[in-house]
């Protein structure tokens, strides 16, 4: 994997729920640590934009969609289980 690749994320959240804010915080922390300077995060609030959520087949919140690099993958939940998230994103864990 090239180190220059930019990760594009879309995070669907339900504003005002604990899980969603936790997911956003976890994602930001992960990006800062693993993908400094090469990530884009779009946050979509399902309450404000349900039709988009419908089109993107969002059922549970929070849902993270990794749009790039391919393959597209979806992760549901607060992203608190870091190893799982990293594995799904194809990133190597960094010994902290």
């Amino acid at each position, binding site marked *: 994997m090239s180190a220059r690749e930019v990760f594009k994320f879309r995070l669907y959240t339900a504003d005002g729920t604990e899980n969603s804010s936790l997911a956003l915080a976890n994602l930001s922390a992960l990006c800062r640590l693993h993908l400094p300077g090469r990530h884009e995060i779009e946050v979509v609030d399902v309450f404000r934009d*349900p039709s988009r959520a*419908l089109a993107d087949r969002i*059922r549970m*919140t929070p849902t993270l969609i990794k749009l790039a690099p391919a393959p597209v*993958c*979806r992760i*549901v939940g607060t992203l608190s289980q870091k190893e799982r998230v990293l594995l799904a994103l194809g990133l190597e864990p960094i010994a902290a």
Partner: protein
Amino acid sequence: MKASVNRSTAATKKTPSGIAGFDELTGGGLPHRRSTVLSGGPGSGKTIFALQFLANGARKFKQPGIFVAFEEAPTRVVGNLQGFGWNLVQLQAQKKLFLLDAQAAPNLVQAGDFDLAGMLAVLGGQARAMGARRIVFDALDIVLSMLPDAAARRRELRRLHDWLLASGLTALLTAKIGGDGAQEMQPLGFMPFMVDCVVILNHRVVLGVSQRNLRVQKYRGSGFDENEAPFVIGKDGFDVAIPHASTRSSVPVGLERVSSGVARLDTMLDGGYYRAASVLITGLPGTAKTTLSGAFAEAACGRGESTVFVSFDSDGAEVIRNLTSVGIRLQRYVKSGCLKLISARTLSGSAETLLVRIKSIALEHRARCLVIDPISALFTAGNELTAHGVVDRLIDWSKSDGITLVCTSLIDETTNGKTERTQLQVSTLADTWIHLNYLVQAGERNRGLSIIKSRGTLHSNQVRELVLSASGVTLADIYTAGGEVLMGTLRWEKESAERVAQELTEVQSRLRRVRLDAEEAELEVRLKSLQTELAAKHVEKALLARTTASRQGRITKGRRQLRELRGGDLLRRERR
């Protein structure tokens, strides 16, 4: 607590499911703008019930609906249920039905806690867009099982419940249940306690026979039938069998009679069966139960009435052949379409299923007369518990539809006790009960017919002998001699002996009359001669009187002349 107060005030309002029998059972349907939990084991018909609720809403009540599929892809659900003719594809195109695929994608990674807020937001938007009034969450247990812990499950159920209340949709949540008893409600946690109505579908196999039941476990603010109601999944979907009470009272009662097909039997019943009556013909094997019901069918077809003959014993062609041997010719009516002969050997399933099939056949054929031969076929192993209810509903249904029903029922000599009880249960419902039995006597088996009961008609108390011959079915008087009943050859012997005796007395009386005639003639002759003699005597007597008088006259005259000659002075003296 405040919510529950509000709830109870509106609880009486109901949303009709449009499912045959269910709305009657619950007094109108599901609680309006409230939630109902529908639980059941695998293959118990939860999804069918749920989609039928939506399809009926969209088609009959102008209430668009949303189906949230957690377990199966919506396209598959629609495909599976295409056979029911609900036009699901068309409803979707008309935006009256929306199916949301809520399956978890196979490549979905789960990392940490999540909630249903996203889905509810999507659903809320969709419901507003299409003006939905009904919603179904199919297999809610699936999504709940994905949640990491009990606390999360509770939280999401609460979220769902609050959302449903706020949305004002009439909701149906289906969930699987494993066994029975305590663990029954496990997958949905406390959801059944929060919703207003809980319906449980049950699918049992009793001695190899599938039996489906539906039970309303709770219904806030409404009365409901608490018992298990059998149901079948027919070609139009659910058909819940409802208890009779509600339909029976409204049936108009007529006085019209229909022929039993046997002239003497009609006489015994004072004119035949009542129209729309239910007739039970019981008897041992081979007592001509089928023949008697065949005669009824023939008479019905002869009157031009559509008739359905359901035979559990033999194939249609066999029934026709067998009945032809006793002069009952049904073939022509089958050809003309008047008679529909169903061999129920080809129908399989529980008593309940059979009832539904018989009903739909009868409706299709617009039957006015229905023969079920024998009804005891419903009481087969595995059906003992339900068959009585089935017969109950069969009789109620035929009565309310004005169908004259003739059922035969086998009474087995060997297992007397049990079947007798069964028969008794059926016979209390039947209006007319005819019993056939054998009398074994002098090396013969002869059939005897008696009417055990016939409500509302005068009926003979006599046992008659049922005589089958190539020319038809007739009844003959039986003889009782010295407390013994005579049938068959003995009856014939007795009859001929009586005939001889009759002839003898006839001859004797004729003879006696001739003799009396002769005596009378003789007397008359004698009378005549005596009368002649008497007349002669009269003449003789008259003659005698006359000669005596003339002689007297002559003497007097002579004496006077003599006196005149003797003295004329006497004459002067006489003048003075």
